[in-house]
């Protein structure tokens, strides 16, 4: 099995998706002008993973900033995970936010309200 990973840039997050262990990590900033183009490979990788998903899938999202263009793509990623969860792999989304970042906590809660997958809100102390 393989691992899908890309390095972060000032405008895009680092992504690491270990299809063997079922752990997906998204970290950094997500503010590209064209988010669809950036997130397509991840959405494709999730499609591939869906057919042979592990019993447990863990998703760690730790974003410092994300723009509204990314917010749609992140929702798409979460919808894929919702499908994977429904198909039998126990998915958990760990949404990290910094202690003083109420906007980021609220953004996580917005997704939690839309997506039918267990979310954990995790506060990071700076």
């Amino acid at each position: 099995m393989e691992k899908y990973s890309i390095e972060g840039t000032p405008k895009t997050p680092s992504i690491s998706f270990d299809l063997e262990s079922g752990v997906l990590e998204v970290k950094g900033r997500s503010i590209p002008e064209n988010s669809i183009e950036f997130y397509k490979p991840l959405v494709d990788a999730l499609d591939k993973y869906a057919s042979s998903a592990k019993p447990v899938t863990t998703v760690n999202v730790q974003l410092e900033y994300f723009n509204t263009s990314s917010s749609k793509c992140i929702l798409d990623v979460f919808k894929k995970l919702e499908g994977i969860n429904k198909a039998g792999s126990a998915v958990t989304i760990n949404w990290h936010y910094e202690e003083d970042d109420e906007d980021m906590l609220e953004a996580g809660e917005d997704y939690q309200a839309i997506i039918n997958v267990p979310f954990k809100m995790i506060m990071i102390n700076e």
Partner: protein
Amino acid sequence: MDIYDIYDKMERNNILLSFKGEITSELLTSILQIMENKMDNLQEEPKMKKKVYNVLVECLQNLYHHMDEVAEKEENEKNSSAIFTIGKSGEKYNIITGNYILNENIGGLKKRLDEVNSLNKEELKEYYKKVLNNGEMSLKGGGGLGMIDIARKTGEKLEYNFLEIDNKVSFFTLNIKVSNQQN
């Protein structure tokens, strides 16, 4: 052109950064970097810094995504440039953007802005989730999420103006204030 006049106006309006011209992806990367450094130097609280940065990203990417609309249709190169200023007076940041818009598109944009301005904090949250979940994916940004997000994060009404240039285009101005207090 009187350059001192421009300098004086910028000084009196506490402008930190101003730009007029074509908005490119590389330019936005640089501007965001400069503003981050400036806010670090001003020892801005992390919370305020994040809010300003987020709102700035949405404002500037709006310009980036919509700048070409007029130029494409009118085949007029001058119209593919935009302007923005970022200022700080007291504890408030002020982001003002200006760009050309086709007169035929004013109605739709005005309707969206007025809709956002009519909503309170809770309603904005619900509206955001609705548009996020049901809205069309668009190559041009978040398909209307930007303005809702700016209003949510600033807790202020979106101040705007359309200045008619001729029978085809107008100049659209958006004036955003970011402060630490939340409504």
